[in-house]
């Protein structure tokens, strides 16, 4: 299945068809139909920075598919990082893995990257640790 079709299959009525969970510990982040799909480009920092000594150079990945959540309390379980450039990064509330997305301080909106989370009730089959 191509990347595009797998994204399409997760959308129902412009919202997330299935539950959104942590890819690592399966913690429930968002229930079905709570996030609105938005296609936008954003450079999200990698979970694992290869160069940890230089904190000024943040390695990122360009992502384009997001669930938008207007009210942070819509999340079932989620963590917020400290603020960096008017943004807080979103992490798993149970195992702290992330960022899975970001929170915009000005608009108060949260963006969860489809690629950084697991969709469905069943745990992710393989735990990959290379994003």
């Amino acid at each position, binding site marked *: 299945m191509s990347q595009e079709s797998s994204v399409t299959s997760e959308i129902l009525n412009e919202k997330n068809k299935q539950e959104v969970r942590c890819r*690592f510990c399966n913690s429930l982040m968002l*229930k079905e139909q*709570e996030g609105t799909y938005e296609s936008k480009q954003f450079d999200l*920092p*990698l*979970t*694992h*920075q290869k160069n*940890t000594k230089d*904190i000024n150079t*943040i390695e990122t990945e360009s992502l384009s598919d997001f669930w938008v959540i207007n009210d*942070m*309390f*819509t*999340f*079932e*379980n*989620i*963590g*917020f*990082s*400290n*603020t*960096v450039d008017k943004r*807080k*990064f979103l*992490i798993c*509330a*149970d*195992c*702290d*893995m*992330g*960022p899975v997305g970001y929170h915009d301080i000005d608009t108060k909106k949260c963006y969860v990257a489809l690629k950084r989370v697991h969709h469905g009730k069943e745990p992710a089959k393989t*735990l990959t*640790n290379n994003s």
Partner: protein
Amino acid sequence: MAKKTYDLLFKLLLIGDSGVGKTCILFRFSDDAFTSTFISTIGIDFKIKTVELRGKKIKLQIWDTAGQERFHTITTSYYRGAMGIMLVYDITNEKSFENIVKWLRNIDEHANEDVEKMILGNKCDMTDKRVVSKERGEAIAREHGIRFKETSAKSNINIESAFCELAEAILDKTAGRESAENPERVVIDRRNNEKAPAYKSCCS
């Protein structure tokens, strides 16, 4: 679409000396198989967790002091809106236990009068290094009329039940207020029913 997906929102704080493991209670970092190098560099601000108590969906927003406690001057702004406070000491650190009294005074000065408090003796897995007995913890809690639990963030002992118990205590108060406004509602006082296993459905 402005529907609320929850019934109540409780703001909770973690307070206590540096090094008592507050951060570990809220954030797990290092102990897990996976860690995010990016997140551990910038640090965590707060978490939102959802629990279900007595059929009510409750959002807990939990904050850590982020190092402010080092100056022993947690400011009024930090306490603003707080409905529950976890006062944490380290059972292997006498000073952190003695300072609980100072923190209680600080809370009295700055926090809302009816804030619900709970004392946690953390690191209870480190039995060989224990210097504060469980009895002393219980005694100070009794003296101030607040709840007490020994916990281990590392071994995940009593952490979830502590948060649920604090949330339930706040819920009791909220329910009390609601009943005053709405006399037709029957409120069952559960305080005397010594904590039935009410946490099964909670924090799952």
